[in-house]
């Protein structure tokens, strides 16, 4: 059936904007297969995975390959005309009109995500077959990984909030499993717990938000929600602010927004493919996706689109800049990438919150490719040197060229160097921010671009340049791993052109249009033409970052050594006076960025982590109090006390039984007399 999206499309038409969309026919009706195959793979791998050559890797890959077929077909159909339909079936009906449904939406947004998840997912799975070879319980790895894919697809395909929650917690579960994949070491388990618990806290927001919105409008259906939002429905308006902010809080958890980002760096405890697919490309973007799905809600109600938006943009901004700085001091290459991911998520969130629906999603789209690429590259390196620390690397470019070149491509894309993908998407964000009047934010974002380029350059330099400081003889990874690197490098380079403002590719239009007719009904902004001035500034910031980074961590020995002194900047001028000007420049940079970064690192470790640990400890302590004092002594004590009392009463009462017959008789007579006195004279 055409479903809610179609209604919305009609709504768009009412606003006089032309849309033409097919119902996707067979491919859309059967799109649900994509939501199921990974679960079949999951069970199959658990059942027979151990016995297979690649421990079930082939099953997982096969499943995603099938999915990618559907995803691609739909993607193309959507380019060439648009697809718009949903399929749902009822899983519960309470009373007359509280209905729960499962199903799959097929529209620009979900198709984009289907494609993203399945494309990147497939490559990562293939890569993982090589990466995980010979590792422990590989079959469990692929099982859990397939579980993730399924849950993620359920999430992105969700036509309503409830199914979204199901997928949402599902991916959380998978990430718990995979972060704690090496559970023999309890630290990894704790990292998994931390991720799950942080998200669970955020989910309280999601669930309450869903309830408040859903109950208020009588359905959890996204279409209804958007429609009513577009109509400025009163019942919805009444709860828009609180509901919207609660949803945003939920999004903050999954998408690692400050201050709930703390779990993501720890999540790097999982195998690298996991970090690539879940903690960079797809899962962490679920929050952005949620914001996009419910975008009309955030646009059409003054309080939410006003003050509410301020808060959300602020959070996003802090995230994109402050957390980005942390990447400067990390030595673990995966940590560098993790912080960078958080900062990029900050960009997306800022954009979507600011009303840049397309901008945010486009950055989500491009980022998925080059961040996955970077992680896989890092994985390839780690696989080679058996260490996460850049202090054990260096000079690897001659050992592993493919990895090097693809990694550089990814870095440049991330840094936002024209004409790579990152440049266009980041530029669109800047443009949107400027247009929506967040000028300050826009400048912070530009500074962020500088920082991004800065730390990526550092990463590249320390990893691939200088001389090798690790042990053994590093070697290029097998084709099964480099293949995906290349396959990801290409889109990282080219996909920027999919959405050059004002450029409509022949026959297929551009990303903005694919994202679907729904946008038009939501009064979002997307630039119609490139603002080259702004682009130039952004580009300049990036280049500056690269230049300084290169100067600071460039390949000559001294500065390679300087990297170590960089952590103690006060001493630095005393040790090196040679290039005075450079020293000055370096001094300034070192003296400023260093302490700031370390301060933020400190707050990160001691305040936000601290809070989490404190909360955890506190809760346990409270539990102790509740149980040992309240329960055992208090509530329970009352019960025990009572019976103890009855007991002693019994012993005292029975003392009456002295055995002396005449005392009995006295009691007898006394009783009689008391009765008489009582009833004859008193009453």
């Amino acid at each position, binding site marked *: 059936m055409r479903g809610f999206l179609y209604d919305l499309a009609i709504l768009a038409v009412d606003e006089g904007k032309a849309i033409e969309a097919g119902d996707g026919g067979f491919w859309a009706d059967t799109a649900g297969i994509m939501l199921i195959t990974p679960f079949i793979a999951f069970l199959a791998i658990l059942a027979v995975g151990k016995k297979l050559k690649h421990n079930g890797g082939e099953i997982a890959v096969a499943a995603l390959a099938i999915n990618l077929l559907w995803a691609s077909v739909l993607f193309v159909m959507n380019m060439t005309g648009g697809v718009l339909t949903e399929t749902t079936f009822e899983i519960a009906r309470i009373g007359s009109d509280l209905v729960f449904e499962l199903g799959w939406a097929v529209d620009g947004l979900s198709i984009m995500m289907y494609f993203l998840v399945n494309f990147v997912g497939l490559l990562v799975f293939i890569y993982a077959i090589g990466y995980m070879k010979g590792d422990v319980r590989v079959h469990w790895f692929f099982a859990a990984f397939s579980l993730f894919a399924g849950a993620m697809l359920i999430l992105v395909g969700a036509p309503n909030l409830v199914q979204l929650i199901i997928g949402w917690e599902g991916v959380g579960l998978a990430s718990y499993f995979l972060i704690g994949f090496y559970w023999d070491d309890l630290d990894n388990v704790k990292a998994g717990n931390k991720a799950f618990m942080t998200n669970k806290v955020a989910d309280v927001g999601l669930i309450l938000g869903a309830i408040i919105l859903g109950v208020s409008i009588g359905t959890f259906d996204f279409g209804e929600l958007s429609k009513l939002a577009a109509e400025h429905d009163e019942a919805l308006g009444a709860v828009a602010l609180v509901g919207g902010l609660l949803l945003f809080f939920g999004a903050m958890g999954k998408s690692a927004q400050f201050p709930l980002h703390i779990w993501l760096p720890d999540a790097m405890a999982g195998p690298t493919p996991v970090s690539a697919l879940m903690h960079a490309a797809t899962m962490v973007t679920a929050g952005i996706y949620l914001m996009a799905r419910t975008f009309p809600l955030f646009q059409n109600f003054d309080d939410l689109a006003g003050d509410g938006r301020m808060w959300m943009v602020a959070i996003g901004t802090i995230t994109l800049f402050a957390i980005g700085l942390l990447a400067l001091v990390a030595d673990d290459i995966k940590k560098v990438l993790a912080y960078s991911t958080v900062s990029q998520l900050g960009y997306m969130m800022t954009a979507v919150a600011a009303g840049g629906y397309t901008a945010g999603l486009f950055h989500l789209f491009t980022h998925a490719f080059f961040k996955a690429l970077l992680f896989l590259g890092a994985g390839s390196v780690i696989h080679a040197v058996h260490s996460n620390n850049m202090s054990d690397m260096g000079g690897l470019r001659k050992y592993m060229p493919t990895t090097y070149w693809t990694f550089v491509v990814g870095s440049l894309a991330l840094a936002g160097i024209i004409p790579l993908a990152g440049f266009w998407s980041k530029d669109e964000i800047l443009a949107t921010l400027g247009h929506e009047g967040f000028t300050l934010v826009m400048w912070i974002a530009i500074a962020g671009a500088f920082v991004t380029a800065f730390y990526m350059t550092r990463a590249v330099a320390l990893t691939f340049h200088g001389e090798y400081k690790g042990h053994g003889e590093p070697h290029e990874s097998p084709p099964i791993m480099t293949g995906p690197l290349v396959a990801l490098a290409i889109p990282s380079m080219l996909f920027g052109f999919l959405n050059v403002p004002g450029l409509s590719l022949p026959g297929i239009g551009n990303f903005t249009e694919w994202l679907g007719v729904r946008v038009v009904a939501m009064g979002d902004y997307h630039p119609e033409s490139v603002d080259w001035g702004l682009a130039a500034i952004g580009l300049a910031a990036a280049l500056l970052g690269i230049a300084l980074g290169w100067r600071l961590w460039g390949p000559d020995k001294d500065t390679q050594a300087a990297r170590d002194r960089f952590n103690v900047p006060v001493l630095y001028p005393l040790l090196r006076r040679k290039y005075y000007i450079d020293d000055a420049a370096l001094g300034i940079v070192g003296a400023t960025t260093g302490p700031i970064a370390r301060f933020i690192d400190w707050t990160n470790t001691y305040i936000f982590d601290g809070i989490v640990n404190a909360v955890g400890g506190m809760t346990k302590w409270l539990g102790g109090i509740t149980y040992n004092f309240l329960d055992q002594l208090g509530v329970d004590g009352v019960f025990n006390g009572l019976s103890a009392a009855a007991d002693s009463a019994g012993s005292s009462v029975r*003392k009456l*039984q002295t*055995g*002396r017959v005449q005392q009995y*008789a006295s009691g007898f*007579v006394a009783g009689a007399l008391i009765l008489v006195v009582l009833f004859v004279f008193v009453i």
Partner: protein
Amino acid sequence: MVVSQFLVLAAALFAMGVYGLLIRRNIVLILLSVELMLNAVNINLVAFESMIVTTEALGQVFAIFVITVAAAEVGVGLAIVLMIFRNRQSANVDELDLMRY
């Protein structure tokens, strides 16, 4: 005729009986106290009968029954006394406190 004197007498006897039963240690004397109480009852009955004359002289009849039963009771009582005396060469109730609590 006036009944009240008889009633007072009866009450007094009854009270004495109770008193005796409570303080006497020797079982035989206790039995006698019981006799006192029962006779108090008889006096009551007869006195009442003399006040309200019933066709079947119920008072006297009742009294006779009481006397009979009293006799029986004392018979039983003495039997028990005998039994106890056999076992412990004493008729003192204070010593009977094997069972208590």
